[in-house]
């Protein structure tokens, strides 16, 4: 692990999340409790919670996670990969 990977996780933005943030991916400070993910993003990208995140799926590693409903608090660890996946409905 590089020093950056010891203190950050990688977050990937898809579809409207990518449009809203203007990024495909970036690194954010870790550890971060999963339930605080949306507030963290809201502070960086005001309005994103209501307009994008409210309907998104989120994955941690390669698994779908429930950001708010999960019983025990999951913590995003340094080096983890998170993806924000809005529903795409067109076709």
């Amino acid at each position: 692990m590089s020093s950056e990977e010891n203190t950050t996780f990688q977050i990937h933005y898809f579809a409207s999340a990518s449009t809203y943030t203007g990024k495909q991916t970036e690194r954010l400070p870790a550890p971060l409790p999963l339930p605080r993910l949306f507030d963290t993003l809201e502070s960086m990208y005001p309005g994103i919670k209501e307009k994008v995140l409210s309907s998104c799926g989120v994955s941690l590693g390669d698994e779908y996670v429930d950001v708010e409903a999960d019983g025990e608090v999951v913590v995003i660890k340094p080096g983890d990969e998170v993806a924000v996946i809005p529903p795409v409905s067109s076709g």
Partner: protein
Amino acid sequence: MNGLEQTCASLRTQIAATEAKLADLKRELEVAEQAAASHKIQNAADAEEGFERRWPLLDEEYRRYGRQMIVPQLGIQGQLKLRSAKVLIVGAGGLGCPAALYLAGAGVGMLGLVDGDSVESSNLHRQVLHRTRNIGKLKVDSAIEYLKELNPHSKYIAHREHLAPEAAPEIFSNYDLILDCTDNPATRYLISDTAVLLGKPLVSASALRTEGQLMVLNNPPRPAGDKTGGPCYRCVFPKPPPANTVTSCADGGIVGPVVGTMGVLQALEAIKVITADETSTAPPPSLHIFSAYSTPLFRTIKLRSRRPACAVCSAEASVTVDTVRSGSTDYIFFCGSADPENLLSPEERITPREYRTRHHGKEEKEPTIIDVREKVQYDICSLDNSINIPISTILASSSSAMSNGDSSADGVPALPPWVPADVASSQSTDPVYVVCRLGNDSQVAVKKLKELGLDQGGKRVVADIRGGFRAWKEQVDPEWPEY
């Protein structure tokens, strides 16, 4: 000279007449060939029934499907399953066309297509079953015309309508497997709910710009409350996106091979579901994300099983066939509807015609027009007296300025950097007009400019050009490119 012109005219007439005759003959031939093909199939089927045929497929089918039948995962058993399968494709567009093309090619016995739209020329770069000559024709008819030529063995059913809640359960009941190839959230929830309630596996895909998503849902298709059944669309996306954030391919754009990839993958997943060995367990539910400009191109997310409180597939389900059919499960209400923006009063708006009369060809220079389309659209075509400030820039900076509480010394909000100098200047009262593609974003932008105080308390006109460039083309400039 006169004689030569007459010769030309006469030749032209003869060519036209001969071409018409040729077209007639081609049509007749097509009809005759189709009749011959179905006659042949019928004869073979009769023969099969009358006296025990040695082989389950027709001679022509062994040749036609041989290349896929010798793949171990399919085999003759798989081919027979495909032949008895009934697949419904909802949407005959960018996803539905390639999906239908491969499923018809693979020999699916019965293919139904649902779509109420007609072919437009803006469809042709990606909707591979439709051809230029079929512009204006119903998509299902255009698609089936192609599919029949491709594989006359299959049966094709046209549902010439948009899928509606009152009709969905009955349509679905005639099929074994559903493909969601539609383009809006309300229909996606309707399809998923109906598929769960009628016990049909669902292959769902979507695409926009350079990205796509793919999921096999409700597989295996167990009754609501049975936790061993596959998750449904609501389990993955329980809340629909806000209606005013939903982007269509018309607004957001779409790269042909991106949506094509997703449609082809739907056909592949459908073939896998149809030909799966009864004794094998279904693969774990996954969401596949395709991103054409990322590395890797694909990511796969493992989905969870059914959501414990899912409104349709859990033990606590509230959605039933009756609530769907009766309309008490209201998909339009659930997903909301983005009405065309109507944010401004009549005096804050001007039609292209009024603008032209007021400002064109006068002595003073034409006023500055702020064009709030995204840069990629501005680059396609723009007006000489316009400047480009994309709506995304306007919205992004205004929200951050608000939240940071930026303000100048006198308590007025500081102007964001994108405001042009002559618009920011309090010396000028030249009117400011805002335009976009269809006249929605321009209203949002006018509201923002006024919130920033740029109308100088009413001394300066800040107005939107009503109906955007679509109306501009209709009213003042027929040569404006419509893309």
